[in-house]
């Protein structure tokens, strides 16, 4: 693969709550290369969307990015000035939002909303922007004359397509798709995913695909990063995750996913619940639910380490050479 487009280093985003500091995202590092689809997986509340918002610096009070660096083509975003950010947003990195139903302004025509993004970032005439908007709509399979329509005149799946068209408006190199297919029925979801994959191939886009739907993500991602309770626990190629997962949580997640081909597979749920991230002390955040946890997991935080070329995991079992097998 080509050069690195986005690199996230030790990103930490905390939220201030009445009870203390919630360590929503801590020490998350990964990179995305040109033309690569990275699937960012995790259950609800694990900090996936916070990572996305932190990359674009959209975190607002009471949240704050407390540490870390985000490089987009060598340009550092966390320390960038607001003015620079306004230029970078959308022209170089765009978002397909969680629930496109609410991400379109209900009182403006969808064409105007797409044009707005173009007109902010490029010195083109209104007519040129409109022409491009029509092309974009056609690209995502919507009649070009529908630019005049208001969001409520579209179905959920079509709104999602509009959101994709909008994300492509300034031909960015990097797109973050934040749970963008959640809430759509499986048929529409697969259409949208196929469209995304198609566009990615044509335009050589890099995509971060945030989702909690493991099978969907494995079907189109080159690499997968798995998050648990605000930490990145494993990051590897899709193949490695599927066949050689090293972190107990990754393994548990795979075991909890039904398999269409191997129908006899027993689905195992993960016992226990996600820990409260407010004032959480130094430990492996999965230790309360991990069948292999030992003393060290309760007092020390495992770092993300390369277990083999291109495969990273944050687990002490790797260091201690424990065999990862189930006793059940």
């Amino acid at each position, binding site marked *: 693969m080509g050069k690195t487009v986005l690199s996230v280093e030790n990103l930490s985003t905390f939220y201030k709550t009445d009870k203390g500091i919630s360590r929503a995202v801590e020490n998350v590092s990964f990179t995305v290369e040109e033309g690569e689809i990275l699937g960012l997986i995790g259950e609800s509340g694990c900090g996936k969307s916070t990572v996305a*918002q932190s990359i*674009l610096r*959209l975190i607002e009070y009471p949240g704050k990015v407390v540490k870390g660096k985000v490089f987009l083509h060598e340009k550092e975003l966390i320390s960038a000035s607001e003015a620079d*950010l*306004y*230029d*970078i*947003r*959308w*022209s170089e990195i*765009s*978002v397909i*939002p*969680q*629930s496109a139903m*609410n*991400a*379109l*302004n*209900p*009182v*403006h025509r969808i064409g105007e909303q797409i044009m*707005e*993004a173009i007109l*902010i*970032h490029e010195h083109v005439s209104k007519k040129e922007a409109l022409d491009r908007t029509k092309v974009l709509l056609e690209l995502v399979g919507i009649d070009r004359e529908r630019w*005049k329509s*208001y969001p*409520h*005149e579209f179905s959920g799946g079509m709104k999602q397509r509009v959101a994709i068209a*909008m994300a492509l408006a300034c031909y960015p190199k990097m797109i973050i798709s934040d749970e963008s297919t959640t809430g759509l029925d499986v048929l529409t979801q697969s259409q949208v995913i196929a469209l995304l994959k198609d566009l990615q191939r044509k335009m050589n886009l890099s995509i971060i695909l945030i989702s909690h739907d493991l099978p969907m993500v494995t079907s189109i991602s080159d690499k997968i990063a798995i998050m648990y309770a605000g930490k990145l626990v494993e990051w590897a190629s899709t193949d490695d995750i599927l066949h050689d997962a090293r972190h107990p949580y990754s393994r548990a997640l795979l075991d909890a996913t039904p398999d269409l081909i191997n129908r006899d597979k027993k689905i195992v749920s993960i016992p226990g619940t996600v820990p409260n991230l407010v004032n959480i002390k130094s430990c492996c955040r999965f230790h309360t639910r991990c069948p292999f946890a030992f003393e060290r997991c309760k007092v020390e935080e495992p770092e993300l380490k390369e277990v083999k070329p291109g495969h990273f995991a944050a687990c002490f079992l790797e260091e201690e050479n424990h065999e990862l097998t189930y006793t059940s």
Partner: protein
Amino acid sequence: MLKFYVGKFLQYFLVIVLMLTLNFLLPRLMPGNPLVFLAGEDVGFMTSEEKNEILDKHGLNDSIPQQYISYIKNIVTGDFGYSYQQKRSIADLLKERMPWTLLLAGLGLVISTIIGVMFGALSAWRRGSSTDANLLTMFMFLSAMPSFWIGMILVSIFSAQLGLFPVFGAESGWSNLTGMDRFFDILRHLVLPLTTLVLISVTNTFMIMRYSMLNVLGEDYIMMAKAKGVRDRVIKYKHAMRNALLPVATVFMLSLGFMLGGATVIETVFAYPGVGRLMFESVVSRDYPLIQATFLIITFSVVIANLLADILYPFIDPKVGGQREK
């Protein structure tokens, strides 16, 4: 779209017919004889011929359907009957009082909406700051004060103590002012009642605007606009304001309907010759035809304001009124 409007018009026409009928039936369903009311105490000494003459004069010997037709005819031609207490035609009375109410209540509504929207938006944009807390406290305090009390305080400070503004009335009737002099005279009379009206009604708009703006700011499309690189100013005015104003517009339209009812309390405190005070006077003196006419006028204006709201709303909120164009 045309179908939408025709349907709305038919609906409102039906409402007006129902309302007129109810207004016609109410006094006829009330117990007692209209003669007592028309002729006063003398009715006991009248012969049946004299009684008939009076009833004939007022068309009360006709059949109910006939009375209904002439009633509708009168309303359509703007004849609301005769006020026995004020000894004047009700249409004339209303014609005289309505401009003052429109001036006072109309200006009050517009000014309090503008102030409420501005401060409501500001408060929401600075949520949790001291600006927000101070504005909220101030407006809550204002809304907790009774209007007659504010009126009296203002009169005692600015009229009685400082002598800046006149105490009552809408203009200095005896001075025969013309042109700009008259304009400023009316303005000077207007200041205190208008201030009182704005002070008591501004909190409503403020609270609605603040809440609505807070809701809108939490919407995904605001974050999307930010992600698109839209400047904060543009987000506030183009993306947030448009949406946040929708509930305010609804309340504005509704208040527009009740505007003709006037600010009864304030008009009474300041002896302002508007419809509100007329209604108060008519109730106090049991002037039934006048009561009926003022209520009718208020109902009319509520219906018209609602119709106006229905016509205008599709232009404010694209979600209403179906598809405008294909």
